[in-house]
């Protein structure tokens, strides 16, 4: 996880413990972060990260999470996954 100015870059392959750490990190800072980017080449290790990203977007809809807006991600590990947030 890297925080550069108002851009936060995270790794998709976070474990549950890392995701909980990320959740704790972002809660008090959500108003200051403008963009969340995903480091290239990773793959989800837990669905909890996808849920957290959706929750963040739902809390602050103007935060830019380009990865989430694509609504799909492909990886040799698990094929293509899609998500629907109803927003």
């Amino acid at each position, binding site marked *: 996880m890297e925080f550069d100015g108002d851009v936060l870059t995270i790794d998709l392959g976070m474990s*549950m413990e890392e*995701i*909980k750490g*990320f*959740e704790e990190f*972002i*809660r008090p800072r*959500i108003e200051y972060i403008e963009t969340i980017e995903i480091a290239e080449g990773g793959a*989800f*290790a*837990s*669905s*909890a990260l*996808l*849920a*957290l990203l*959706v*929750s*963040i977007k*739902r*809390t602050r809809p103007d935060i830019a999470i380009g990865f989430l807006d694509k609504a799909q991600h*492909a990886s*040799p*590990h*698990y*094929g*293509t*996954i*899609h*998500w*629907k*947030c*109803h927003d």
Partner: protein
Amino acid sequence: MTKQEQVKAIFIEEAGEIIEKLDVDIIRFEENSSDFALLNEIFRGVHTLKGNANAFGFTRLGEFVHHFEDLLDYYRSTQEFIEEYNLELFVNSVDVIKEVMGCELDAIADLPQSYEECLAGIKKLLAMKKNGGDVLEPLPQEQMLNDLAAEFGLSCGEQLASSVDKAIEVFQTIQNGDLNLYKLELKLDEDCYARGFDHINFIKALGEGAQGIESFFDMQNIPSLEHFKSDVNKISSLFIVVLTTKIKSEIEEICEFLFDNEYAIVQIEKQSVPKQEQATLQSTEKTPLQPNLQQSAPQQATATEQSANAVKSTIRIDTMKLDELFDSVGELVIAQNFIAQNEKIRMIEDESIGRTIETLSKITKRIQDRVMSLRMVAIKDTFDKMKRVVRDTSKKTNKEIHLIVQGEETEIDKTMIDSLSDPLIHIIRNAIDHGLEANAQERTAAGKPTEGAVTLKAFHKSGSIVISVSDDGRGINKERVYQKAIERGIITGEENLSDSQIYSLIMQPGFSTAATISDLSGRGVGLDVVKTSIEKLRGKIEIESKEGVGTTFSMILPLTLAIIDGMLVRASEEIYIIPTLSVVESFRPEEEIVHMLKGKGEFVSLRGQHIPVVRLSDVFELQTKERLEPWEGILVCVETESGRIAVMVDELVGRQQVVIKSLGKSLAKLKEISGGAILGNGDIALILNVDELRPAIENANG
């Protein structure tokens, strides 16, 4: 029954279905009055009703629907815009149809007053329309309707289902040879991460060696950060479409440690594709896990046509026959368990017998699941009816309501659906009438949007179905409820009650904290009836509330009325079954946390709470060799109407699903027992009614 009576019975049944559908459709049309296809459907229903009503001499109903049909016909043929206040006339007309149908069936001479008023309104509107005059003016007291259309548009679930179907179509076109196509749905419980399960791991496991895999996450239930916890799963469902060489048992093996309600596997039939076309498709196949999603137009057309040709076939079956079938399957399960656990058979050292018994077990389980699914219907229809309840209550109370519906595809036992409507209606009315703030000013002062939110939700949780109604209103004043319960003599004030138990006091007979009584709720006779209705379904109601934030009523129901998930316990030499829905925990206590209170019996101190110990051997007056101390046995802590109790047993035997059998008239008098079940070894075990265990001991002690 004569032939004429039989035909009349069929008419009454059909008319009931038509009116029920009209009730739902008219609200949908009110939300989107430009949907003329829906108006056509309403017209067809009314037209059928008219023909049948006149045929059976229900002339008053016939006359009303005749004029209503004319009005509908005018709008569907002209496709003219329908003003909001005229839509109200449509909705009222369906109400009148319902009432008049009741009058006709019961041969009641007096029609409701609304009959003439509504009929006059229909005639007047039609006359004005045909003569080119002005439309009816809205009544001054009429309120603008809430726009619920956005809520009831194409749901997230429907959009996902469409995407899943497309993925299946694509995979079907590249399916060849020994490749199998599956659709899996995972609905993991909230505690799945703690149990070591993660959606991603399932996708990875299924993807191993697969030709193609696509997964679809339904994220509509993910809350904002305020209510979010990373390690609590809120992903409603995940659909996985996988094209693989794996056979079904291998797929089932991947899911074998999940609860039955957490997953569903469907093997998709192969489509017959012309050889030449198949060859073209094979040449365009991609590497594993990367299916070819860009099909040419003619190929897509073929898949669509084939899909369209697969006509869905259904038949109507008398529910009595289904119940008989279900009973027979219950007997089959018992007989199969008996064979599988029979000592003499198990001693036969013959591999083929072992294999046959195993196969029999699998087939029996499959038949049981299939028959169970026949009784299951989506709760959507019931939820649809509730939209009308919310709309009407919103108008009566002058409160703006935003209705949120979630999980309407959740399936529930058909026999429970019919008994659920009334409790749901009451809870929803209660939520709007008393749960929400009195007016918009009060909400604004509390820092809330003027529009109140009511959420209707259905979901599976740990083998049960939960139907909840939440409001974002005032919440329940716990202290006031507690004091009122003491005043009314419902409690003495000495009880050690949890928050949930204090809130539950509002469901006691005669309890009401409402300052005023309305025609909707607040008479103090409703919630106890709701509670009784749910308990008749072997369910329970839990109330959560936070003052100033809102209240949630959760109805926790078993998946079916015929089978329960039970914990088998032994007391003396007898086996009893405790419904797991009421079990909180089980433990062997330390000696120092067990106390004897003079005149009140044994108690166990658990995390600051004093829980009475109820010895099963005392309740049923069982013969025991020696009287064990609580720390020598096992205590099963269960939730009852009057608080938690610790049931003392000798041993925990196991947990299993049992088919409930009634006990006959003589044993039905024993309140401590709610039924019986035949175990795998042929023995009979009694199912405990935990609410009556403590009273049984107290009565015995005088």
